[in-house]
């Protein structure tokens, strides 16, 4: 009960933020919310399906660049987003293919390679994608910081509700079972392949859509913001920090990362160092993350 009360309080706090928060911090939170969706989508694959996916930015990048390129071809924002998301889901299916055969670090490396190949492709086709400089898109969601904040906030809350619902449904339970022991899950009569493919599609859907919306919020899609491996690391860090296998922990982790990045800006180059060090300590001392630590079962007491 306290959990739901806390969640409701946070939603109210987030919803009223534009009334008392300055424009600059609204912008920071807007990016943070899209980031939170990336993290939650990744947690579904990692925490539940047990897939070590080092390449969340492969899906995000496909969604962002897919939507951006189509928008440059003259499609409207909604249609571009739909197509970009469809491309990302295609990418998710492509990743699901090796996931049928490979496990653990082998699969992890394939996802890493997928990101590297996407990076190379973006640089090679610099004519359409803008290469390392990035690609401008003609349309933006809105020019008002407040409206952008609302878009991001509502999108994040809806994504959180859906993903949390999925994680608590039978699909989430079966995914957890296949992640921990796929042979036994199959022996119990669950179709492992079907559920795994579903997990990839769902994760790709939210990653791609969030990537596309981030592009239309910022007005550009660039390698540094949606594809680079550093972004993948930040997503992983956000989930592990907030608590893996919680879905909602990703929101906490993403907002922590974005806020800390702002607060530590005076440190300059050292700020990545400090954030990594803090996260490393969290991993070593509280391996279940912040949410896992706060809501751990108190049976032993």
């Amino acid at each position, binding site marked *: 009960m306290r959990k739901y009360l806390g969640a409701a309080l946070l939603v109210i706090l987030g919803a009223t933020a534009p009334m008392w928060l300055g424009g600059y911090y609204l912008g920071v939170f807007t990016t943070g919310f899209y980031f939170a969706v990336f993290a939650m989508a990744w947690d579904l694959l*990692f925490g539940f399906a047990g897939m*070590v996916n080092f390449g969340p930015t492969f899906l995000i990048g496909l969604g962002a660049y897919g939507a951006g390129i189509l928008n440059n071809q003259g499609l409207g924002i909604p249609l571009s987003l739909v197509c970009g998301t469809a491309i990302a889901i295609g990418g998710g299916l492509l990743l699901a293919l*090796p996931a049928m*055969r*490979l496990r*653990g*670090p*082998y699969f*992890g*490396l*394939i996802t*890493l*390679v997928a990101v*590297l*190949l996407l990076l*190379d492709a973006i*640089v*090679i086709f610099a004519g359409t994608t803008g290469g390392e400089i990035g690609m401008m898109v003609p349309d933006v969601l809105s020019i008002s910081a407040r409206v952008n904040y609302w878009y991001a906030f509502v999108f994040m809350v809806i994504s959180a509700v859906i993903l949390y619902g999925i994680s608590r449904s039978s699909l989430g339970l079966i995914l957890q079972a296949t992640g*921990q022991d796929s042979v036994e899950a199959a022996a119990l009569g669950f179709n492992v392949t079907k559920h795994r493919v579903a997990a990839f599609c769902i994760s790709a859907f939210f990653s791609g859509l969030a990537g596309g919306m981030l592009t239309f919020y910022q007005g550009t899609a660039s390698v540094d913001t949606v594809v680079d*491996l550093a972004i993948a*690391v930040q997503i*992983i*860090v956000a989930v*592990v920090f907030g608590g893996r296998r919680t879905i909602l922990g990703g929101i906490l982790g993403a907002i922590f990362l974005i806020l800390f990045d702002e607060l530590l800006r005076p440190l300059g*180059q*050292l700020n*990545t*160092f400090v954030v*990594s*060090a803090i*996260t*490393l300590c969290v*991993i*070593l001392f*509280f*391996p*279940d993350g912040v949410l896992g630590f706060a809501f751990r079962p108190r049976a032993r007491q």
Partner: protein
Amino acid sequence: MLALQILIDGFAISSLYGLGAIGFTLIFGVSGVLNLAHGGIMLIAAVLGWWLAANHGAGAYGGAAFGIVCGLIASFVTYFLVVRPIQRSRAIPAEEEEIFVLTATLLWGIMIQTGMDYLFTDNPVTLPAMIPGVMSIGGVRTPRNEILIAIICWVTIGLVWLLVNHTRLGKQLLAASINPRALTLLGFELSRIHLIVWTIYGVLAGLAGVLLASFFGVSSSSAGDLTASAFTIVILGGLGSVPGSLVAAYVVGYAETLTAYLIAPTLRPIPALIILVVVLYVRPQGLLGRR
């Protein structure tokens, strides 16, 4: 002419890749750890070796020796501060240990990279050549240093082979990679064996970092690429298989050199990645890996 050039350059690069990768694969084979801070450790050896050689007049050999010692220290720090606490933690379930080690060493690698970036900037550093001059092999002008590097790599690889296959210590390492529980039942201390393998790893990674700095130059921004290439080679060869890693090092080294010379230097990493995807799809355990 071009063919010979590719053959020579590819050989030197591949030997270096092989040296970098065998430590990585050894540590996985014996203790089951995939160390994603690998590039960071090579980076520490390279940059600190350069720092002593260039700023304090230690010369090429003094700098290289200092770099290797630093690599060894970095390897111990990685083991005692990052890997061992996770292996001993009661809060982390055994089946998730692997993922935690991956994430923690990844973060540790980033800390090393940004720390070195802060202290020494990200300009590429190059160790002075160990022996100067060039010589001609069948008409191809090759720096003597490049030949020396290839020789050092192969001598070291040979020494590791002797150590693993023909000493009592090596037998313990092999046994630990096959069945650690049986080894502890026979009265061997497993943590001592882990310490030994991290020592070997530190020396190998340090040496590889120093030689890389002497050959190409290393910058702090390349730590991630170094880890990725070692990871690629080791997975392609089969995790835990030292001969597999060597074969894979040559496949990757020659694929990159051929692309750089014949197609375009910017496309250098792509063919190796495609080979990797195809091999893993057809043969998930890698070239010489066992299931």
